[in-house]
């Protein structure tokens, strides 16, 4: 009948199984998916993270060079981190602090540089004697935009 008594006595005599949480915090595990962040200086604003995100909490504006994330909608699955082509996204292993107000992560980076008309014109002039070349050169600067258009 007193099968639990041994356990109870052991618990009374041994150290507490719990921590005084806010004062005593455990070291986080290495691979813990705690908080999503972006090294914005490396970001190429390709929108892969925006497309792959299951909760659709990431918004990328390639023209303005902004990367926004709603941490309250994020499900911490790290799918975006897996798919990031330049590996600028990462998960920090400390979790976000509780907040009484809604907040957004708003990061401003340098938007992708478009080739200026002058830069386009220079190789075009060089290649002018060969007749089909100018068309080919004119189409080339638009090429980087095409993948981002597809991923939408």
């Amino acid at each position, binding site marked *: *009948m007193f*099968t*639990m008594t041994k*356990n*109870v006595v052991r618990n009374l005599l041994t150290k507490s*199984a719990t921590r005084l949480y806010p004062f005593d915090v455990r070291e986080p*595990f*290495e*691979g*813990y*998916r705690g908080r999503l962040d972006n090294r914005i200086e490396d970001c190429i604003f390709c929108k892969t993270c925006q497309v*792959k*995100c*299951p*909760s659709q909490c990431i918004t990328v504006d390639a023209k303005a060079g902004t990367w926004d994330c709603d941490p309250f909608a994020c*499900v*911490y*699955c*790290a*799918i975006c981190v*897996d798919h990031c082509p330049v590996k600028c996204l990462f*998960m920090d292993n400390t979790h976000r602090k509780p907040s009484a107000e809604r907040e957004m992560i708003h990061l401003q980076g340098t938007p992708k540089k478009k080739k200026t008309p002058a830069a386009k014109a220079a190789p075009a002039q060089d290649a002018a004697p060969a007749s089909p070349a100018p068309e080919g050169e004119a189409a080339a600067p638009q090429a980087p935009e095409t993948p981002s258009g597809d991923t939408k």
Partner: protein
Amino acid sequence: MARTILPFGPQHPVLPEPLHLKLVVEDEIVLEAVPALGYVHRGLEKLCEVRDVNQMIQVVERVCGICSCLHAVCYCQGIEALLSLDVPPRAKYLRVIWGELHRMHSHLLWLGLFADAFGFESLFMQCWKVRERIMDIMEATCGNRVVVSVNVIGGVRRDLSPEQCSWILEQLAIAEKDVKRLQSTLLTDYTVCKRTKGKGVLTGEQAYQLGAAGPTLRGSGVAQDARQENYAAYGGLEFAPVTEPDGDSYARSAVRFRETLQSIDLVRQAIARMPGGEIAVTTKARPQGEVTMRVEQPRGELFYYIKADGTKNLDRVRIRTPTFANIPPLLAMLPGIELADVPVVVLSIDPCISCTER
């Protein structure tokens, strides 16, 4: 006393789930129970029309937090069957390891809640203390405690290093010792036996006829387990379904207790037999056709029907969870018991109403 209709739930101090039952009682003896569902419907199945095939993994994981990994395994296996993908053997073993860890933490959580239902607070805390170790294993290996998000179509996302494997085995040895320490209390204590033995009896034939699943079915002596179908890597592991003959609340809790120890054994076997190699294969193909898939959740058999039309979205995802199968047996258990035993008997099927309503 005349017949009275008593509303039980949807919020009840001992039930963590919003299940509403209309109980017809006479002199505190239940004569009939009528269920009412629909409090936590979230429309997750409808989301498959908006989210693409890969994003749906994260959606189905959220059908139920406690068995998130197994929902993802079932869904991914369904899509892999449609795409005729060969999953690497290592990924199959990793799925077994995380699936069994989920079963362990679900059973320990339930054993704690069950103890809490008949007022055994100390036992409740002990069960959850053991469970915390399992949660730590998942946090260290998957990156999250509950919704682990490790499954992808074609395999898994994370691998286990040899150091992690030996650490898991160490932790499981401690957990096993702790679980066994609770054995005498859970299975022989006077209070526990008094509140559970002979309450909510379901015979083996009734359980089979009413379509019970999981520990509810095995607690009535029917040795049926979806893991016997050898999905994932279960074909390479040795196990036999845990059964108890009595069919009462005690038998169902004993099945869950013994399954916890069985899961520890299965993780050990899986780690010992895990082959090397790739953990995932990738494909860009889009699924087409329809498929049904079954896996064994902690609560019982989980059933998925997936219909795909070759676009990036699925046509239809139908999920039948074990609690849905266990509601008719529950209604057969309730008549004839005392009102005070209703929470214990309802909890003995491990109801997950969020699962049932999705």
